[in-house]
């Protein structure tokens, strides 16, 4: 047991040494996760309370200044991590689940199942993502949950297409034929033989997409369709900053936060691809 653990930690160390980008990515994401989980324990100010004069530039008391009402921007940015990370996790999880199940069924059964699912995928992917998400969020009504729902509707087809292609590829291999000849049921064939070999591209792609999902959800809030005031969500904070254009510090923190999450997930995804899928590596 201990030797297994040691070899695991050795492998991990080798990865981290070979891939500085992976380390940086993990540090960035780890930083934001810790902030999101603990901010309520140590934050000096309440993110919703007015704690100083309004529109104060950065100072020692308020490192990123105060917003149009006099709330601390840095504390609000830290609290914003909760919303963005929670939305991104929920959206990616649901999209991967829906997309993978439908994509796997599509590739595995073929025929009209395939046709119906793939036509829905084609039509959904024909829309520019932000416009579709905006239409959905607008018709569902403004709000954080509706914005998340809108992003899921926009996002799942990507994974459906990915999983379908992967299943079609795996299913044509010889060992599947052997399992079929051995009398495996269709259900067993799909769950025990095809799916375990089809996951890798989805995992890589989902990791890379985290940052994009954070960005899309923040875009909806920026437009006014996502989080509503006084929620300290990054997109709506940037929208506040746009309204008070000359107080640049209001939008500064949330923008850096979105950017850093995007970079972090990209670094991790890139390194994961090199490790899990060496054929595609080095690009």
């Amino acid at each position, binding site marked *: 047991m201990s030797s297994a653990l040691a070899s695991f930690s050795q492998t991990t160390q080798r990865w981290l040494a070979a891939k500085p980008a992976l380390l940086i990515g993990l540090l960035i994401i780890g930083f934001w996760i810790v902030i999101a989980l603990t901010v309520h324990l140590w934050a000096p100010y309440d993110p919703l309370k007015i704690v100083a004069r309004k529109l104060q530039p950065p100072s020692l008391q308020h490192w990123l200044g105060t917003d149009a009402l006099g709330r601390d921007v840095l504390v609000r940015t830290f609290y914003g991590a909760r919303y963005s990370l929670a939305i991104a996790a929920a959206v990616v999880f649901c999209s991967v689940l829906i997309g993978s199940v439908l994509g796997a069924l599509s590739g595995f059964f073929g025929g009209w199942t395939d046709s119906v699912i793939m036509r829905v995928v084609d039509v959904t992917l024909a829309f*520019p993502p*932000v416009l579709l998400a905006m239409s959905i969020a607008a018709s569902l009504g403004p709000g954080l949950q509706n914005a998340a729902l809108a992003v899921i509707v926009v996002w799942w087809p990507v994974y459906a297409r990915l999983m379908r292609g992967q299943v079609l590829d795996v299913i044509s291999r010889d060992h599947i034929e052997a399992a079929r000849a051995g009398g495996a049921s269709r259900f067993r064939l799909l769950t025990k033989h095809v799916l375990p070999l089809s996951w890798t591209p989805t995992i890589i792609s989902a990791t890379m997409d985290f940052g994009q999902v954070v960005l899309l959800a923040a875009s909806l809030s920026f437009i006014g369709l996502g989080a509503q005031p006084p929620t300290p969500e990054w997109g709506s904070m940037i929208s506040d900053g746009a309204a008070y254009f000359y107080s640049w510090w209001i939008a500064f923190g949330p923008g850096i936060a979105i950017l850093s999450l995007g970079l972090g997930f990209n670094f991790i995804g890139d390194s994961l691809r090199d490790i899990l899928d060496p054929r595609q590596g080095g690009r």
Partner: protein
Amino acid sequence: MRNYVLRRLISFPLLLLGVATFAFLLSHLTQADPLAALVSERQMNNPDVVEATKRRWGLDKSLPEQYLIYVGNLVTGDLGISFRTRRPVLTDIAERLPATLELVIFAMLFGTVSGVGLGVLASRFQGRPIDSAARLFALFGSTVPVFWSGLLLLYILSVKFGVIPGPGRLDARSVAPEFVTGLYTVDALIAGQFSTFLNALHHLLLPAFVLGWSVMGIISRLVRASMLDALGQDYILAARAKGAGERRTLLRHALPNAMIPTLTIIGYSFAYLITGAVLTEAVFAWPGIGSYAVDSARTLDYPAIIGVSLVGASAFLLANLATDVAYAYANPRIKLG
């Protein structure tokens, strides 16, 4: 080949119908009440006003009826009437399309040229600091929120340094050139108003950079990968053996081959541009269909937002079709299934 193009052309209107159906269903299966956008809060208690408004906008008909009317209207180019502007959506869009086109064209030019440049540079110096710097700069572009970078750059360059004009397509004192194409830069040149041309160009610089930066990453990433692929081929060895210089090897022998896969991504990155244009326009008060979409979404004006989505989706599908056909001509080896 002709079969392939024909098949794509036939499936195009079907996809459009799917897109229209999807948009229509979505906005009708939800609880958001379009009446709230049409009738003032006080009048909502007045059944006569509510009834009349419903009849006027066709909201009293059954869902299938509304759908048939909608699709029938679409075929004749009627996208409905905006709740907000009370004008035909198609008129609104047509009026604002040139502003978006101008922005997207300049952003595309910037994104493509700099993306290819960065990609070539990165492949030439593979594994060295220049490579990492180029990749990082490109990655920043595809990760940074355009509504944030636009805001911040506008503040720094316009307010702090005054080298970039404020939001909008022209200075307040400039008069729009006579309408020919609707692209201010082109129209100004046609009218021979050189100062207006410079002013329009000046106003385009920052939004086009912000928007173009977002696709630069995708393009440079692929150019780098295909350049590395091409540089490993035998014909590069042959070119070097016969004494071709480094620049000639890169630009004349490797780049044209690397451009074939790049062509596809340039076409597809159109979708990112449409997406980015929506948010860029909102920041720069750019009077295009992007800011129209944002204003419509905010006021739950669903004929307008569906109209914009339809136009966006058609533009996107057309761009993909054009890309695939161009790809087929550029690379006769591939078979299109």
